[in-house]
Structure formats: structure tokens, C-alpha cells
């Protein structure tokens, strides 16, 4: 199945600017992270979302503050689009107390329970059962919330994918599965990982509605997500979207990227969601050069501010190392 969702919805200026700003923020944020990583300021594993911004920007706009989000280790975009302050995300990259996870999580574990962002999870498919549980809780409490669960094409091969989709469908829980299919799991192309490469078709075998969406088209993503989330909210049980996208950079900042051709990457970069969207808005007469400059300036300022904030943040003293192993700091071993 491919999407039948209506994407002709008015491209009003306000909506367009917001989406463009969001995508730009994610892109520039990560470009800054690359610099900071080279400088040794940011450490550990860092997985860039560059090329996939339309997914986070579009999908997140279709959710309400009451909805819950479960994410992966490639989640800078999700976190920013969910509205976690850029400062807090950057401070987390620095490992500072002011970070959104207090410096304990780093790039792969951004959390903000206030906005129901239940974290970056670095075990592939490990977040799916959590999403099931969040949705179960919301359902049992009669809350009108959807749990949006992001994961990659690689996760589809894991047993937890199967168990979770079956349970979500069986119990008709309000989960919206959002599979970011960027065609690779590290160096493994999807056709070398899955006997059924049509991910939406696989999902629909669990008796849940599933569509494929062009993940490079931010409007299509937002519209499809809104439609699916509304269907879930209306009691239609879990839904599934496959978001077809591509990562322009290597898997992580460790990866020499030997498994794809330069040509393939170049072709996909022609479909870069940012310039494509700028073009589209321009064509619709809803965007001026000044708008673009203003967004870039604003975003640059926001990132500079975030870096300053992170830089001047605090390192947690090692005396509190064992804090947060248990809620009651007193609990020992």
C-alpha cells in the first residue's frame, strides 16, 4: 500500500515557515554537532539525522502535547521537533547537568518526560514494547493519547517488532508505529535483511492499517501522520506508517560508509527535503529570500546560544555518581 492521504491541504505560509524552521534547526544543530565532535567536545556514539528531517518535523507537528513519543538513538531531530529546548539538548550532548537527561544519557538517550518524550533508546527495537506499555496505560486510564513510536527499517527484523505489533493489534492499543525506512541498518541494505522488503505490507499482516509515505516530503509526512493519529485516537487501534527516507551521512560518526555507492547517495541528496521544500514554498509564493535568511539567522543564533549554554553548564560532581540508580538515593547495593 502507498499513501492515499490528501496532501493538497493548503500550504499556508505559517505552517510552511514553521516546518522549514524546524527542519533547518535540526540540520544546523547536527552540523554543529559534527564540528563539536571533531573538537572532542561531544563524545560517544552520535547518529546523524541529516537527510531525514522531514520525518521528525512533519510527524511531530501532527501530535498533541498529550501524546507520548518513543524514539531511537538517532533522535536529535525527534527531540528538537518535540520541543525539547535546543539548549537542553545541546547541554546533553556535552554531558552537562543542564542537559535534558542531566548529562547521563548523551546523544542516544535524550529524555523529556514533561513533553512525554520517553527517550532515545539505543537497543534496536527495544523501544517498541515500551510504546505498547505507554499506550496500554493511557488506554486503561481513559486518556485520549496516542503513543508515537519511531524505529528504523533494521528494527523490523527483530523479534520485539513482531511481538509488539501483534500485541498492539490484538489489544487494539493506541500506538502509531512510525518506521523510518532509510534503506539501511548500518551497512546492511534492507533487501539483504528482510525477505519482505515492503515494510507496510509486512505491518498490515498484523491486521493493522499501514501506509507508505514519502519521507522526503514534509507535508506528506505531516498529513499522513495526522490522518493516522486521528484514526488511532478515534479508537481505530494501532496504525503503521512507513516513512521512506535516506540518511545522507554515515551510520554514526564512527562509520567509514563503505557499503553504499557515492552515486546512490548523490541521487538521494537531489531529494534533500530542505531545498525541496524551500523550492515548493517559493513556487507557491509563500516564501521570500528574506524569510530564508531570517530563519537561518534565527536558527544560527539559537544554536550559538545553545552551545554557550552547554559550555557554561556544570559537570556533575563524581560524588553523586550513583544518583538515579534508585529513586530513593539512599537505596544501596
Amino acid at each position, binding site marked *: 500500500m502507498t499513501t492515499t492521504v490528501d496532501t493538497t491541504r493548503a500550504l499556508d505560509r505559517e505552517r510552511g515557515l514553521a516546518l522549514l524552521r524546524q527542519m533547518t534547526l535540526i540540520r544546523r544543530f547536527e552540523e554543529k554537532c559534527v564540528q563539536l565532535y571533531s573538537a572532542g567536545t561531544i563524545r560517544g556514539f552520535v547518529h546523524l539525522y541529516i537527510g531525514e528531517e522531514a520525518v521528525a518535523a512533519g510527524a511531530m507537528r501532527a501530535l498533541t502535547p498529550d501524546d507520548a513519543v518513543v524514539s531511537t538513538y538517532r533522535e536529535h531531530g525527534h527531540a528538537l521537533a518535540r520541543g525539547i529546548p535546543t539548549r537542553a539538548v545541546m547541554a546533553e550532548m556535552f554531558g552537562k547537568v543542564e542537559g535534558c*537527561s542531566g548529562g547521563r544519557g548523551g546523544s542516544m538517550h535524550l529524555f523529556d518526560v514533561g513533553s512525554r518524550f520517553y527517550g532515545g533508546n539505543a537497543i534496536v527495537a527495544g523501544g517498541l*514494547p515500551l510504546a505498547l506499555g505507554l499506550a496500554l496505560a493511557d488506554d486503561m486510564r481513559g486518556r485520549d493519547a496516542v503513543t508515537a513510536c519511531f524505529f528504523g527499517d533494521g528494527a523490523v527484523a527483530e523479534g520485539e517488532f513482531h511481538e509488539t505489533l501483534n500485541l498492539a493489534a490484538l489489544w487494539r492499543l493506541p500506538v502509531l508505529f512510525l518506521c523510518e525506512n532509510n534503506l539501511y541498518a548500518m551497512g546492511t541494505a534492507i533487501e539483504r535483511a528482510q525477505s519482505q522488503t515492503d515494510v507496510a505490507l509486512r505491518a498490515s499482516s498484523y491486521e493493522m492499517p499501514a501506509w507508505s509515505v514519502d519521507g522526503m516530503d514534509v507535508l506528506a509526512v505531516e498529513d499522513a501522520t495526522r490522518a493516522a493519529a486521528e484514526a488511532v485516537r478515534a479508537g481505530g487501534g494501532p496504525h503503521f506508517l512507513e516513512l521512506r527516507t535516506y540518511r545522507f551521512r554515515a551510520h554514526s560518526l564512527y562509520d567509514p560508509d563503505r557499503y553504499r555507492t557515492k552515486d546512490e547517495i548523490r541521487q538521494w541528496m537531489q531529494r534533500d527535503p530542505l531545498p525541496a521544500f524551500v523550492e515548493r514554498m517559493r513556487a507557491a509564493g509563500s516564501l521570500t529570500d528574506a524569510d530564508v535568511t531570517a530563519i537561518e539567522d534565527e536558527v544560527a543564533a539559537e544554536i550559538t546560544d545553545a552551545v554557550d549554554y552547554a559550555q557554561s553548564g556544570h559537570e556533575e560532581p563524581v560524588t553523586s555518581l550513583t544518583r538515579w*540508580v534508585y529513586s530513593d538515593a539512599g537505596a544501596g547495593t
Partner: protein
Amino acid sequence: MNTTYREAIRSALSEALESDDRVFLMGEDVGRYGGCFAVSLGLLEQFGPDRIRDAPLSESAFVGAGVGAAMAGMRPIVEIMTVNFSLLALDQIMNNAATLLHMSGGQCAVPLVLRIPTGGGRQVAAQHSHSLDGWFAHIPGLRVVTPATLEDARGMLATALADPDPVLIFEHASLYPMSGSLDDDAGPVDLDRAAVRRHGTDVSLITYGGTLPMTVEAATTLQDDGIDAEVIDLRTLRPLDEATVLESVSRTHRAVIVDEGWRSGSISAEVSARIIEGAFYELDAPVARVCSAEVPMPYAHQLEQAALPSADRVVAAAREVVGAHG
């Protein structure tokens, strides 16, 4: 009130479900079937299928769902039919349940209770006889408790549910039919302290869970030899109540640890190491251990019995320790 270990757990479950509508029980065959060990028999009729929730054979997903539901404010009790199947859910237990609070910088507490029948002795062979209670106690972020008495079977659940963090309750399957009397107003018990089940002066016998009855029996036998054994029930394997153990050993100067886990790398090793670190100069003899043989459990009766700790082996170890020169 006369009751059994099984009934004590059932009444704790029933009370928890009645008093807090955030509590629900989820697991394989907890509902229609009545629980693999009949622990939850009747609860489905009382509380309905939403709160006594039968799950398919999907250990990782439903344990993870318990974690997620706990994060979202529920108080799930998830039953893993037996500990043997917990291996399929270990990713969710270690990487999520035990870890989320910490890696979120204190934001994501996981007030989840896992109930896990455990242990050998019923000739169900190598894939159904694990004693991994102590092995799970290696994982920071978890609390691991092992009710061995009617009071604890009745009282640990409520305390576990009140805990803001994940608690694993290991119920030794051989204890379910254990009967005895229980106060009518038995209620929550602490999960912090080991209990001295028998006072003695000559040797400390330290155990937990399914091996408590045989350890008490061994102490009685030793009495006839003129050896006055103290019996300590650890009750909680993580965090260990080191103080109670050290205090006892400092009085008796001798210790035998009884543990159904495979010996190498069992919790008995940790207890022994703690005694060395905290009471070395008090010891008059090496700390001894009576554990399970390091073998996947064989089916044949005589082999299984030989693999498990027994009162006889505890008695022999205690005699040797007491006989040792200081």
C-alpha cells in the same frame, strides 16, 4: 488463619488490585487458566480481563509493556510464568527497566513488579529448573526479593508496589504448597532487612528462598550434635543487607551459605566476599558454601537430588566449618 504460601500471594494480589486501580496483573495464562501454579485462580472473575490480562507467548513484549505502563503511572505486576523464560525478556529487564531512571537523569521511574516463579526439584529438567534469583541480583537498578515464609509471601508484594523502582519477586515453586498460620492482619513487610530465623551462637547458616526450610531443618539436626546454628534468611538479594550478615558472623565466627544457584558466580560468592571484606578478622574458619552442582538440571530423580542442596549437605558443611581450627 491457616493458609498456604500460594494463598498468601493470592490474597496479597487481591488486596493490591482492590486498593489501587493502577494495579493490574499481566502474564501468560494468569487469567483463564488461573495461573500456571494456580496462584491467580479466581482473580479474573473478580477483576475482569483488563486487569487480569492474559498475554500471548511474547515475553519480551509484555515485560517491556509492563515497563512502559509503569512509566506512564500504572503499577503493573507482570508474571513471567517461570524464571526459565525470563531470558527472553532480559533485554527489557536490564536495558530498560533497570536503566531508564538513570539514563533519563531521574525522570523515568519504573514502578514495575515482576513476579517470577523459580527453582528446581520437580524433575522438570534442564530448561525448566533454573535458580537465577541471585544472578539477577547483579543488575543495578533492580531490587530482588525472595519470599521464603508465609509472612513474606503475603507482605512483600504491597511493599514492592509501593517502591518507585522495579522489584523482582522470586517465588520458589516448591514453596507454593507450604502451609502454616498467618496473622489475620498480616500486611506489608519491609524489603530492606535480612531476618534471623533462628538464633544461634556457633555458626551462621545464610540462605534465602527455596532453601530456607532445609536450612532450618539442618539447624535442628545440628542441635543434636551440640552445634547451635543461627539461620539468616537474606530475604532481599539486592540490595544485600550486609549489616545483618556481618553482625551474625561476628558473633558466630563461622559461616555457611546455602544457595540453590549454580555455585560459580552465584550470590553465595558475593555474600562470601562481603563477609571477607567486612568480618575477616572475626572469622575462625573459611566461609563454606552449599550450592547447586554446576550442571544443567538432569531429569532423573537421583541425579536431580544430588545436584541440589540438601539438609544433609548443609549439616556436613556446618560440621566441617565448626570443626575447623581458628
